[in-house]
């Protein structure tokens, strides 16, 4: 199986106040088809940057980035990024419905498009706000609109940057499970940036941790938990707890790990 999306010896340098700053160096990552890979790392370690490079939004300063064996020079077909900065990524002059339709309206006939939009909005629980403008929505709602927009396109590869960061635990859990279901049905490849260790372990097939400055991959951990996973039973499994523990440790987290009563 060839990797869907991959980078090899990737380096990224960006301009900073006092000269160029090396953000990433020597990052090698290959994500296979239908794989779910989570990226963790401290704030400012370069997760967003890595995701932007994989999504074809930022050119690499060194190394190669490929999608299905062709070098990337712009967002490849079927690869959709969900931005961390949801407030800026929605079009304020379009209603929620038309924001969600943005990626498909040129490709699909109206009836099918409406169906897809409704489906996506139902998934994120915002169908009743479809005619509202995004700037009248709460932060978490805007974030969900962006997720719906990505899902509506039925992407092959989904690059998500802290997509559930502004959601309450319940909404988050529901979306986690919806995402798993989508992946199971469609075989979507997902790269998922998150700060929530539990979420990362619960959802992923593999989990990588970015650290250092410039950052590279410090830990790469397979999560061999059986699927389908379930919010209660999976999280009660000893191997889940064990994996979670290892990740906390890798993150240098000696204090914040939730107690294991």
């Amino acid at each position, binding site marked *: 199986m060839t990797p869907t999306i991959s980078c090899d010896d990737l380096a990224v340098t960006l301009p900073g106040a006092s000269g160029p700053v090396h953000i990433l160096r020597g990052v090698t990552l290959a994500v296979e088809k239908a794989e779910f890979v989570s990226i963790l790392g401290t704030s400012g370690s370069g997760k967003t940057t890595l995701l932007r490079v994989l999504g074809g939004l930022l050119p690499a300063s060194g190394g190669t980035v490929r999608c299905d064996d062709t070098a990337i020079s712009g967002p490849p077909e079927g*690869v959709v990024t969900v*931005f961390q900065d949801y407030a800026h990524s929605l079009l304020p002059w379009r209603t929620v419905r038309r924001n969600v339709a*943005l*990626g498909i309206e040129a490709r699909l006939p109206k009836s099918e498009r409406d169906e897809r939009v409704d489906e996506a909005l139902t998934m994120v629980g915002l169908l009743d706000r479809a005619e509202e*403008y995004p*700037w009248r929505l709460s932060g978490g709602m805007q974030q969900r609109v962006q997720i719906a*927009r990505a899902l509506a396109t039925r992407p092959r590869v989904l690059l998500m940057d802290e997509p559930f960061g502004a959601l309450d635990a319940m909404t988050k859990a529901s979306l986690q499970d919806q995402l798993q279901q989508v992946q199971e049905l469609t075989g979507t490849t997902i790269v998922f940036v998150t700060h929530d260790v539990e979420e990362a372990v619960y959802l992923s097939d593999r989990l990588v941790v970015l650290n250092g400055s410039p950052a590279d991959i410090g830990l790469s951990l397979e999560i061999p938990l059986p699927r389908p996973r379930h919010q209660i039973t999976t999280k009660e499994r000893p191997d889940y707890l064990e994996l979670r523990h290892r990740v906390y440790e890798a993150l240098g987290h000696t204090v914040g790990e939730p107690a294991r009563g």
Partner: protein
Amino acid sequence: MARRVNLLGAAVFVLALVLWELLVRTSVLDFTYLPAPTAVGEGLGELLANGELLGALGHTLFAALSGWALAGLVGVAAGSVLGLVRPVWTYSMASLEALRALPIVAFVPVAVLLFGFSVQTEIMVAFYAALWPIMLNTISGMRTEPRMLESGAVLRLSKAAVLWKIRLPGATAMIVVGLRLGLSVSLVLTLVAEMVGNPAGLGFLLVEKGQALQPGQMFAAVFVIGVTGIVLNGLVMGAARLAFRGQMASSGEAA
């Protein structure tokens, strides 16, 4: 909601007129050339009665709106190209800036030479004047929020779709400002063209009534011009609200 009449604005306007009337009545302002609003009202009645007004108004509106519409098309198209295609901008912007700086009033006689005493002269002048605000505002509006462009890229919108669905709608509020500015500028310069060039329309009516020592009628023409400005602007805003509901709402212009 959009149809709500602006009572407050009308009240301020009427108040200003009443103040003017009082100043004239109390002889604080005592000039034969500057009549009181009531005298202007009489003048307006006379102009309406002899039928000069509507013809002149129609002529001026036709010239100003034709020039403006042309400027709208050219300005938005050229502004988009200049805002998006860097080499075009590099190799022509300075020329346009230089042309823009040329005082159009001084060219009215030249335009008269080229186009004769015709409505074309007026349309050309109106077009030339309205073009720049529309073009500059379009160029400036083309600086779209980068994250929105990235959204378009990620959703694999075509270049045309990015322009049509993201850049232009994002620039709409600015373009509408340009159109509003262009409208009043084209109206004002059509009038100038009528005053010094083609003897027709409200501009000429103004001069003619001045020369005829009819200040009441002359200021009636001025008044009609001003009201035309209000009405045209209202129509543009109304049309923009209808056509670009989301853009207007998101830029705080919903009624």
